[in-house]
């Protein structure tokens, strides 16, 4: 299969992206985000799950949460490039909601074959979901789980589960006698205990979840294959979110250094300020181009999707780190305060950087593909 030169980003995709931008700009400006999530500044504040459910419901009603669900399962079946456009706008708004988790579960379920169809239909009907596939050590490798499935029951724990307190369903990976299995579990099912983590990021919630004799529906008996197929989409969407958030960081900082005067000049006049902001832009643009490249590969050339998604997430993680640092530094003293909005994105980006593998993790895997596996070297 060949890739279309425009990434397949058609009129429909452009319309979705621009309506999403307008939706968040109108209904959820950054001042609203700050008022919603930054009420308690204490560093040892208890974990909270602060979000606007009614706006989320509007997104569900607009069909945004089922964009990636195949038409056969009652969804819209939008290509990944179009979904990435929406997610970029979600990231720009740093909107707290379980869209990334729901999309991630969608891509994994879509790789599960017939057994995943019922769960997909639930997402199409408005259910939200999170991936519960990470162990206590925080390993991002598919197959590293501390949950075990035996005698029809799940037992064990899943860690670093995103937006766990906002969702109704969990997609759980667990060891079975026949390899890695995937399971679809309701968060309120008996034996599921969601224990909130206290995290830095104010725009998400995170939890570790224990499973005690939980009855679960198996959606895949070959979880490694399904995750292998779907993870490129999971990484690409997260990278799209980071690119959108980084663009907010860039534009907000550019605006500030255009207003703030020192030495009788706007700060942006000085090259010590101007050039790093250009470098932020260069990094964002590289990451953004790689995100749409990866999304297009997912849609049109799956054989290249893994490489392309490793590049997108590695690049987005670097761009997010650099944009975050510069956004606080170039705001000067005010940027170091709780009242200035930049810390919200700084923290969201820090979280996203490590989530599902940081830049070095993705580059190591890319190297295994491009150069070949690391030879076993006797030390």
């Amino acid at each position: 299969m060949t890739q279309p030169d425009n990434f397949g980003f058609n009129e429909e995709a452009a319309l979705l992206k621009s309506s999403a931008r307008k939706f968040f700009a109108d209904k959820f400006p950054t001042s609203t985000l700050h008022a919603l999530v930054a009420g308690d500044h204490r560093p040892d504040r208890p974990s909270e799950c602060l979000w606007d459910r009614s706006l989320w419901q509007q997104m569900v009603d607009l069909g945004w949460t089922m964009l990636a669900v195949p038409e056969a399962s009652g969804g819209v079946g939008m290509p990944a490039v179009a979904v990435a456009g929406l997610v970029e706008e979600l990231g720009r708004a740093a909107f707290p909601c379980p869209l990334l988790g729901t999309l991630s579960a969608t891509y994994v379920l879509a790789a599960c074959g017939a057994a995943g169809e019922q769960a997909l239909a639930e997402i199409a009907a408005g259910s939200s979901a999170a991936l519960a596939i990470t162990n206590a050590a925080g390993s991002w490798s598919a197959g590293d789980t501390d949950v075990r499935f035996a005698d029809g029951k799940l037992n064990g724990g899943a860690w670093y589960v995103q937006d766990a307190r906002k969702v109704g369903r969990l997609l759980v990976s667990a060891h079975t006698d026949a390899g890695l299995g995937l399971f679809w579990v309701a968060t309120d099912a008996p034996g599921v205990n969601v224990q909130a983590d206290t995290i830095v990021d104010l725009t998400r919630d995170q939890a570790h979840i224990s499973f005690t004799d939980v009855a679960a529906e198996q959606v895949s008996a070959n979880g490694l294959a399904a995750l292998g197929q779907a993870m490129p989409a999971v990484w690409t969407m997260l990278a799209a979110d980071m690119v959108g958030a980084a663009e907010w960081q860039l534009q907000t900082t550019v605006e500030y250094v255009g207003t703030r005067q020192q030495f009788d000049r706007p700060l942006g006049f000085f090259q010590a300020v101007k050039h790093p902001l250009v470098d932020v832009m260069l990094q964002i643009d590289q990451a953004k181009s790689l995100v749409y490249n990866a999304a297009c590969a997912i849609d049109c050339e799956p054989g290249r999707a893994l490489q392309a998604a490793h590049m997108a997430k590695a690049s987005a993680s670097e761009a997010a780190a650099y944009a975050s640092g510069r956004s606080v530094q170039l705001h000067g003293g005010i940027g170091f305060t709780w009242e200035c909005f930049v810390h919200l994105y700084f923290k969201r980006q820090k979280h996203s950087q490590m989530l599902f593998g940081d830049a070095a993790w993705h580059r190591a895997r890319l190297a295994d593909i491009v150069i070949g596996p690391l030879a076993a070297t006797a030390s």
Partner: protein
Amino acid sequence: MSDSASKDSPEQAEFREYCRTWLQDNRPPDPTVRLPLSALEIMTTEQLTYLQAWQKAAYDAGLVGCDYPEAVGGGGRKDCQRVANEEMLAARMPYFPNIIGLGMAAPTVFYHAQDELKQRLLPRLFSGEDIWCQGFSEPGAGSDLASVQTFAERRGDKWVINGHKVWTSLAHFAEWMIILLRTDKSHKYDGLSYFVVPIRSALGKGVTVRPLIKITGETGFNEVIFDKLEVDDSYRLDELGKGWQVAMTTLLHERGAGELQTPRSGGLKNKGSHATTAANLIELARTVQRDGHAAADDPLIRDRIMQQLIREVGFAQNQRRARVPDLLDHPMRLLLQNKLLASEISQQTSELALEVAGASASLYLGDDNAPAGGQWNLAYMNSYGMTIAAGTSEVQRNILGERVLGLAKSK
């Protein structure tokens, strides 16, 4: 290529087929001399003669200047230069020697010269019979280009030029120079005018060309001294005092952000050919030993090579996204990054290659044991030419910060 071909207009599809067939039937003979990495390092007439013969053949076949009107010696086609370029690059042809002429002089002359002058100059520029060079920088005018002092004094319908231009690539072979001159000392920007000047015919009669030697040891660029050179007013482009605006047309095309596609050929493998790519870097890392193992098995080296690969692919994908308006927040945002990214990525890749090469990085062109014939050293040193010429990386960052991000102007 099939990707591009599938989106061709009927005219482009027919032209592509023509190019492909012609290139198959008319491959030039292999060069008998070592060709340098690019036209900017052409040192000998043997090298030049071989490359000029190729450009002339390609022009006569209609593969150069395709999108310019027939009246000025072009092909009169629409958006076909890109097609010819793709086919010439895919067929791995030699590069064109008249690189300054095709990339910078041609669009500038086309947009700003009188019809008669265009008709006279452009056909021999396209054919490569007339080599062109560019007289912008001076000893006292580098990044601050508008401070050029080379002065043209009016004498009736003639101008008398006195001054000193530097970093003038190909001046030692050039018939013509595009030149930015001061015609009024009381205004910085509005005191500039733009001319084309015949320099070869004036050698020893008002024009002196002296080679400058690069850090690599190669020649290829020069200083050009004007001592009372008389030129006709008909060689002025656009109005008096509009030189800065005309220079912007040149610079936009030089930095790969112009309207007209530059005719481009290349890819021919020869003794001097070398590509500064992550793929070649990986090949190097496989062959070089580091602590008893291939450098390609060193996790830190792998990570850094992947960083370069990602930058390289990201840059290629920028080119793709630049053509999707719905994914651009600002129309010039990606185009104005081209020169900066191309030069810096190439610099980082060659710099890393020399680290990967370890002890053998000390070996240069004349040593049989040098990795890739010593070309990595040559590429690394030459990369500073790219990050300095055509507006330094620092100037590029000013332009991006001011034009795209809207930050306050540094000047």
